[in-house]
């Protein structure tokens, strides 16, 4: 028997192996999807929270902050900001109080001129995000 190492076999392993792991990934996705309701705090998704998420996206907050650890690493984690600040009022006051021209020499958050309704929505969204079951991440309140 001569030793074989053939392109055909390598190709079959590529196709077969890929299909195998795609199916496994889909199976795990299916399980995730059915397990999520117990973890993702979806009951808290009100219209206000949805509006808050839309505003979060519309102003590209992820371009500076992280949310559940994903995003840019320029500004603090906001997945737990509700817990860090202690209330939605504190979040709203912070966003509202940003100086228009920034703080000299410091990283500054822009003044977005949100209406009170918008501020409510964003704070509600961040409160919802803070109550998702994240396997106990971040390690401490500093994010």
């Amino acid at each position, binding site marked *: 028997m001569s030793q074989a*190492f053939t*392109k055909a076999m*390598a*190709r079959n*392993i*590529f196709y077969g*192996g890929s299909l195998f*792991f795609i199916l*496994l*990934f889909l199976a*795990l996705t299916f399980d*995730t999807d059915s*397990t*999520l309701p117990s*973890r*993702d705090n979806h009951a808290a*998704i009100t219209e206000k*929270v949805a509006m808050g*998420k*839309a505003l*979060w*996206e*519309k*102003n*590209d*907050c*992820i*371009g*500076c902050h*992280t949310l*559940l*650890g*994903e995003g*840019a*690493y*320029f*500004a*603090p*984690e906001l997945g737990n900001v509700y817990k860090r600040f202690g209330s939605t009022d504190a979040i709203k006051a912070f966003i509202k109080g940003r100086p228009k*021209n*920034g*703080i*000299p*020499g410091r*990283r*500054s958050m*822009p003044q*977005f001129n949100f209406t009170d309704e918008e501020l409510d929505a964003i704070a509600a969204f961040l409160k*919802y995000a803070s109550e*998702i*079951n*994240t*396997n106990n*991440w*971040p*390690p*401490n*309140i*500093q*994010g």
Partner: protein
Amino acid sequence: MQYQSQRVAKPYFIAAIGLFVGQILFGLVMGLQYVMGDFLFPAIPFNVARMVHTNLLIVWLLFGFMGAAYYLVPEEAERELVSPKLALAMFWIFLVAGALTILGYLFVPYSSLADMTGNSILPTMGREFLEQPTITKLGIVVVALAFLFNIGATILSGRKTAVSLVLLIGLAGLAVMFLFSFYNPDNLVKDKFYWWWVVHLWVEGVWELILGSILAFVLIKTTGVDREVIEKWLYVIIAMTLITGIIGTGHHYYWIGTPAYWKWWGSIFSAMEPIPFFMMTVFAFNMVNRRRRNHPNKAAVLWALGTGVMAFLGAGVWGFLHTLAPVNYYTHGTQITAAHGHMAFYGAYVMIVLTMISYAMPMLRGREAANSNRSQVVEMWGFWLMTVSIVFITLFLTAAGILQVYLQRMSENPLPFMVVQDKLALFYWLREITGVVFLIGLVVYIASFFVGSREPEASVSPAPAEAGA
């Protein structure tokens, strides 16, 4: 160059390099904002600079992939492109749409851009790397489909090689996974879950097929090693890539509200992700060592070998550093991630596109096989300046990340984010200085296109005695 239609690759490559310059300039702006917080504020806030930096990266890599495909496919399929005109039309559409999007980021507040482009009808904007307005996304789909038609029809009606089929699978996968960017539910966990189907399954999935296929093509051309051998290893490597990389997606599902078992599945499979990159490095060196001839384009061979090494270091080693769930618990979303991102993208994708440009550009500009010796020496200076710079950028960011993790997450009295950032300033300054060196390297690289262009081509030295050993 054997086919006329390969010429359409040239504008793609030129645009790629041009956008690359823009990416680096905005990277330097961001780097400065890290230490001088009010730099350009409020005209160009950090998030805008970042969008431009990352979006330009993605777009120029896509230009590079498309250019590579247009160059490579006719030679592999042994026929002209089905429609060079379509390729050129798509080039201009993509370039104009891309430029308009970037200008939109820079000159209109992002929320106004969202309003102007009707984001509320189908909200897809404002998510990391997918910041493009929805109409731009639709444009990308149209360009991708036209491109796939052109490439696919050429491949399927010509000679089908492993290199071109793998490239086609990679490009098709790229287009298919991008469709998940249109799914943006109110449920943040689901949003994030499927967002990774675009981002992870691109960079740790289908893009690696494109990378492998381009590398295999350049190695076949420059080493003269038997196609059977190279294609066999291409299949083994990309099989390992998908075997580890698909379930490896799980390493993004530790802390975003997804079930706890992903910590195990993600850790185990992503811990294996360095293997295909290691194989790729061994493969590239092995093929060059067994070369049957010395190709006069030494710069292209250098880029190819560099891709193997740097992809392994950046994607493999730096990825492994923080991929295990217990480690990632502390490093998630810190400068460690940024360090990994920089070296992985440079090592894997920037370098493979520059490999292809280095190989193809001399022919596209009318040379027989290679640039003059002087031009190649300058190009190699560019290679070393950029590559060494990215290594140091990565090291400085890693140092910053380790300190950040310690001060903010592990010490007895964890400090607030901004307090910690102030303490990392030294590393950010070092990173910025290294970034300037990178830019110098890029300028030197571009200069290589204009240096020695009137001098004769580098000649082929005789094949080494050990060739074929």
